[in-house]
């Protein structure tokens, strides 16, 4: 049951990230998507991939995007 919820979270947060006007929110939603993907990997019997994805997808990538947004501009004009 959990995997269906996670699938929906992944797709929904991906779509929401693309329709946000605020780029910082988009970065956070990317982290949501990556984190849910990490949990899904754990359910799919791949704990090593899940650990890497949790670090990269839920922490590093959103931080990179947030840094880029901070150095450029926040709102999507």
């Amino acid at each position, binding site marked *: 049951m959990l*995997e*269906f919820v996670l*699938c929906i979270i*992944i*797709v929904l947060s*991906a*779509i929401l*990230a*693309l329709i*946000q006007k605020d*780029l910082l929110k*988009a*970065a956070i939603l*990317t982290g949501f*998507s*990556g984190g849910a*993907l990490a949990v*899904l*990997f754990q359910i*799919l*019997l*791949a*704990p*090593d*991939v899940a650990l*890497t*994805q949790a670090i*990269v*997808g839920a922490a*590093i*990538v959103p931080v*990179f*995007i947030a*840094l*880029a*947004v901070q*150095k*450029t*501009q926040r709102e*999507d*004009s």
Partner: protein
Amino acid sequence: MAQTQLAILLTSVALVVIGLYAAIFVDNIIKKIIGISFIEEGANLFIVAIGYKAGGVVPILMPGMDTSWFASNAAYPLPFGLVLTSIVIGASTLAVMLALVMVLYRRYGTLSTKVMLADTSKQEEYNE
């Protein structure tokens, strides 16, 4: 449990399609890069789903496990190893793209792809 695999395959297809949509229709360059990174995630999810075995166990041989039972019940570990590499490559590619965007923002002052990455022969007016 075939439903699980079907749902996951559909999710990975959805991620790829969202990424391709973003590549064409989203104008903001940072959002475009976020969208393109979803293609990579979709491909990763698909490859992990190959190795998944319904009702199986994690492919780590613990002491005290029966080897033949483990061989017939463990998930297939080769795709997991591949995805590890792929995730790291995707993150580094994203980092390089964002770094280039930060440099280009200083020159153009906007994140619009139509301005920033237009035909080079038409960009003379933006060049200081």
